[in-house]
């Protein structure tokens, strides 16, 4: 996987602060394994070029990530993604919760009972796993 692949992002939503979208992109990367714990991150200048953003935005994103503990900077060395299991775990939790909240928000209006919901989810999940499993043998 090239640097470009690691940091490639979908188009930005202009109604949400760009720097927060960058932070989320990192979190997703960490949760999916695209970005590994302890891995060095590009400089703010490099990140700007990779993600096609303003260097100031890259700066802001990194600061936010440092504040949240996602990134560790030691002295003059390049910053690294945290290896702290607690934080990594929290990221995963956060993303899952966000996804669930978004999902629940979208089905709330339709009105389904929790039981029905969970059942549907499990069946859907299994069917998709089956399809993917089948395809992965081709």
């Amino acid at each position, binding site marked *: 996987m090239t640097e470009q692949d690691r940091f490639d992002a979908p188009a930005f939503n202009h109604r949400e*602060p760009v720097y927060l979208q960058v932070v989320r992109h990192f979190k997703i990367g960490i949760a999916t394994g695209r970005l590994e714990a302890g891995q060095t991150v590009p400089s703010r200048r490099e990140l700007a070029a990779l993600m096609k953003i303003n260097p100031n935005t890259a700066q802001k994103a990194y600061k936010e990530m440092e504040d949240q503990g996602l990134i560790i900077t030691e002295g003059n060395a390049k910053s690294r993604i945290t290896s702290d299991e607690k934080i990594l775990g929290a990221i995963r939790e956060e993303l899952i919760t966000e996804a669930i909240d978004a999902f629940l928000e979208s089905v709330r209006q339709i009105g389904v009972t929790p039981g029905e919901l969970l059942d549907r989810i499990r069946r859907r999940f299994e069917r998709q796993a089956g399809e993917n499993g089948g395809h992965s043998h081709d």
Partner: protein
Amino acid sequence: MIELDRVTKKYGRKTVLKDLSFTAEKEEITCLIGVNGAGKSTLLKAIMGLTPIQGGQIRIDGEPIGRHMYDDKIAFVPDTLTMPPFMTVENCLRFMRDFYDRWNGERAAHLLQFFKLNPADRVASLSKGQAAKLNLLLGLALDTDYLLLDEPFSGIDLFSREQIISVFSSELVEDRGVLMTTHEIEDIEHLIDKAVLLDQGRVIRSIRCEEIREREGKSVIDVMREVYQP
């Protein structure tokens, strides 16, 4: 910082800029937004000393513009390539090198390659996209603190535009203050730090983009709609 302090400009009897004030900070990308004829180009020309103003003051880092600033303080990329048609690309670069002490030949060569421009081509034979890229090169290769750009994307094909946009994410603008005008805000909204909305020669709103997104969940285009089509 580029400061406009109650600037007024008239063309004959028509007042194009009325008591206009705003600032553009160094190390930030500021975008002037307004409909055609709102005076954006005139404003940039006035900052650059290419047309006189009748009222107010324009200051760059505290001082009014003077010709000593053209070398190291401020560069301007107008909306068309301002080089004679008979010159070759190579000639243009040599021209800049001859006249400017702070011409960065290395960066110029690098940009020449990046933009895939042929040094032997005559200015007259360049396509619109190529001319725009050369124009941009001539401004970027000067080691100035500030860069003014007038409609850098206007009428450019998609790929040339992408190339030009990528410049704004690079170190080429990192240490500079950039002030630009454009119509095509959608392509670059995520890149700008500050948007100054003009209407009929006045500043009607000046917004810090990330703040508006954070506080109000609005994009710059949303604000533009509010302001220009209430």
